[in-house]
């Protein structure tokens, strides 16, 4: 039922790059020898723009629901194909050593500079803003925030001690050994950080795309996600 | 071959206004530094655009401000030798010479070779302009323009950077070569002898104006204006007053000259070349000056003798040039009488 040697293109949030390239794609290709996966990685916002402009994408793996929903509302996603695949967690990080003794979100106010993603364009930033608003900290925090245009910036600012603390996804924090996680967002303080996956309506390779999305929900795949710090849904 | 030029061009403090027609083949332009010689040639070649006027060459209208005609330099087929050479620094001598040719490689090689020979450039073919001496550069520029074989050649000081020996040789060869050439040659030069030797017609420019135009020899014999006289090398010029038909009083030299020629009424100056005086033995005839020698300079082939009219207290200085052996064989050097031959008197306005 699957055409021979099809290639599908997956647009994935940058934070998924390591687990996709190192494990998931090879694993899937081994299981489905006649389907090849190409993947492109960037901030979800950029991926959204590319898809809107008709880029040849088959599957979209976003780092937040906002971008997926935006595409869905424009009718660009195959109906009912969206799966809330993964959950990530928002964590508070500090440079290794934690010299400023920041232990919790409330301590952020002691920091001189705080690194968060730009809520306008970076999903992690958008959640961080929601979290801090709920904690009634946003107004004060935003005054001393540097808004990263991508997660790499936020992470490295903290890693290099340029910022005293920052908020990123747990998976991102895990990728850099110069930062230390001191706290995680309390239950209920922010909406769940969901990584949804969906199939693009314009695809001409619906079946292979479906098999890939199905594969992502297998136990094997979940194991991999877990290994990289994601909570499979 | 005919060239008719009538152009005006205004600068802040210089106005060019030139007007001439020329049918002859060789045509010279003389004029002091900054008189507009180069500018005139540039207008003809199409490198400068006159403000108004008309240039016609062999029945082709090259420029006409009224009809809005301004033929591209490329289509004028007029070669212009830049006073500053304008050699292409990125090309060797050979390439510079050949670059304007539109022909097969072999033909180009032959023509280039011929030019290299004509201009004594053998051995310098592969050198770049900055590796050439001033005179070598000038010869490459000449060769380049000759190779192009335009219908007219405008030469701006073509031999100025050459030593006299090479210059004489080259001049002779070039003019030999030019005899085979069908185009018209317009030459700007500071060398009076060059013009005299090679150019049938002559124009003299001064401060942007054409002050005299005509047959070269006629102009040299009768320059008519003070400026022209200076430019053709007349050293002794003085204001004068017509006394009667046949008699002119020369202010600076305090002498009355007699002549049988008709004296034009508007004459205000008298000129005489330093070479034109003649040594005589006494002053019993008219037009003879008793000379008080002020100074003698030893020049290459001649002595330059500065003298005054002994008969007058107010006489200004005059110059007499005489061949060395002639002077050496002159007796009576301290009683020098010089005659001003009637035919050598320039009557000027």
């Amino acid at each position, binding site marked *: 039922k699957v055409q021979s040697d099809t290639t599908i*293109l997956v*647009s994935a949030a*940058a934070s998924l*790059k*390591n687990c996709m*390239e190192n494990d998931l794609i090879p694993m899937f290709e081994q299981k489905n020898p006649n389907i090849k996966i*190409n*993947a*492109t*990685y*960037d901030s979800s916002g*950029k991926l959204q*723009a*590319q898809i*809107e*402009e*008709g*880029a*040849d*994408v088959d599957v979209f793996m976003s780092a937040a629901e906002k971008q997926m929903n935006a595409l869905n509302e424009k009718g660009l996603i195959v109906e009912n194909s969206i799966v809330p695949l993964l959950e990530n967690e928002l964590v508070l990080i500090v440079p290794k050593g934690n010299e400023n003794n920041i232990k919790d979100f409330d301590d952020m106010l002691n920091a001189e500079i705080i690194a968060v993603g730009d809520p306008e364009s970076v999903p992690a930033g958008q959640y961080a803003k929601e979290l801090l608003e709920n904690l009634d900290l946003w107004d004060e925090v935003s005054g001393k925030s540097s808004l990263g245009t*991508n*997660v*790499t910036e936020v*992470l490295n600012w903290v890693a290099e001690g340029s910022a005293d603390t920052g908020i990123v996804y747990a998976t991102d924090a895990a*990728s*850099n*050994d110069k930062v230390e996680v001191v706290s995680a967002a309390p239950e209920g303080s922010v909406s769940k950080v969901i990584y949804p996956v969906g199939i693009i309506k314009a695809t001409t390779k619906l079946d292979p795309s479906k098999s890939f999305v199905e594969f992502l929900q297998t136990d094997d795949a979940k194991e991999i996600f877990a290994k990289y710090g994601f909570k499979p849904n | 071959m005919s060239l008719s030029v009538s152009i005006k061009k205004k600068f802040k403090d210089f106005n060019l206004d030139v007007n001439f027609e020329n049918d002859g083949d060789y045509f010279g332009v003389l004029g002091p530094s900054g008189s507009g010689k180069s500018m005139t040639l540039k207008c003809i*070649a*199409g*490198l400068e655009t006159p403000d108004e006027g008309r240039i016609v060459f062999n029945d082709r209208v090259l420029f006409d401000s009224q009809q809005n005609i301004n033929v*591209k*330099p*490329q289509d*004028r*087929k*007029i*070669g*212009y030798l*830049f006073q*500053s050479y*304008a*050699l*292409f*620094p*990125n*090309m*060797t001598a050979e390439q510079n010479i050949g*670059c*304007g040719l*539109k022909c097969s490689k072999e033909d180009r090689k032959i023509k280039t070779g011929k030019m290299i020979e004509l201009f004594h450039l053998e051995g310098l073919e592969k050198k*770049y302009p*900055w590796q050439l001496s001033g005179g070598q550069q000038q010869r490459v520029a000449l060769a*380049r*323009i000759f190779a*192009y074989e*335009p219908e007219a050649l405008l030469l701006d000081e073509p031999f100025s950077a050459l030593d006299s020996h090479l210059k004489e040789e080259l001049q002779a060869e070039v003019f030999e070569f030019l005899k085979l050439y069908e185009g018209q040659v317009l030459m700007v030069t500071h060398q009076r002898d060059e013009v005299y030797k090679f150019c049938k017609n002559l124009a003299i420019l001064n401060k942007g104006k054409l002050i005299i135009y005509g047959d070269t020899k006629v102009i040299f014999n009768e320059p008519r204006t003070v400026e022209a006289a200076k430019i053709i090398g007349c050293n002794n010029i003085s204001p004068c007053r017509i006394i009667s038909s046949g008699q002119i009083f020369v202010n600076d030299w305090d002498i009355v000259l007699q002549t049988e020629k008709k004296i034009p009424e508007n004459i205000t100056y008298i000129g005489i070349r330093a070479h034109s005086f003649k040594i005589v033995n006494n002053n019993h005839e008219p037009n003879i000056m008793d000379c008080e020698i002020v100074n003698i300079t030893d020049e290459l082939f001649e002595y330059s003798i500065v003298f005054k009219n002994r008969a007058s207290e107010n006489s200004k200085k005059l110059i007499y040039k005489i061949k060395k052996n002639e002077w050496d064989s002159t007796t009576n050097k301290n009683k020098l009488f010089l005659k001003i031959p009637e035919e050598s008197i320039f009557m000027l306005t």
Partner: protein
Amino acid sequence: MNLSPILISIKTASVSIIVTFFLGIFIARSIADMKYGKLKILIDGILTLPLVLPPTVVGFFLLFIFGVKRPIGMFLLEFLSIKIVFSWTSTVIAAVIVSFPLMYRSARGAFEQVDKDLILAGRTLGMSERKIFWRVIMPNALPGVASGGILAFARGLGEFGATAMIAGNIADKTRTLPLAIYSEVASGNMEGAYSYVLVVIIVSFVVLSLMNYFIMKQNKYSNKGV
């Protein structure tokens, strides 16, 4: 280390420098020819624009132009069956667009420094404007033009923001060296990043040395230079 970004980058940088080089000198020549005036300054401004906008933003605009739902993208797809977005071609487009101002500006500056008498001399020798351009203006403007070439090549090789936007970041297809470096840095794999950086440095050194050598050789004829 995966070699494909290296090959892709070299291919992209080579093709784009050729396009940029000729486009740059062609347009520089046309502009330099113009009389000073408002139009000249306007065009000059527009041509320099890709430089003042962040490359990512340039990429956004390119996406808007070549997207399959936009007129140009639609036309290309319908009539020529060419899809620009996410194709290798688009890496070239991005590189050309961002490096163009460098080439254009340098070439223009260089052309303006050429002695006008040389051009006039060419004209009186009956050389066509085209021949004058290639045989007289270009060689005499070489240092400046070559500078532009070097800048444009380097910029094309290092292009990242616009490329990511319009070409994506697809391994073996559009992932150029800068994208690979960025990806490695982003995923915290500094060693991978360093080895790619080393490659970039080596590639650009080789090319710069070649260019320098070439300029030096060409320059031997001239009495120019400090």
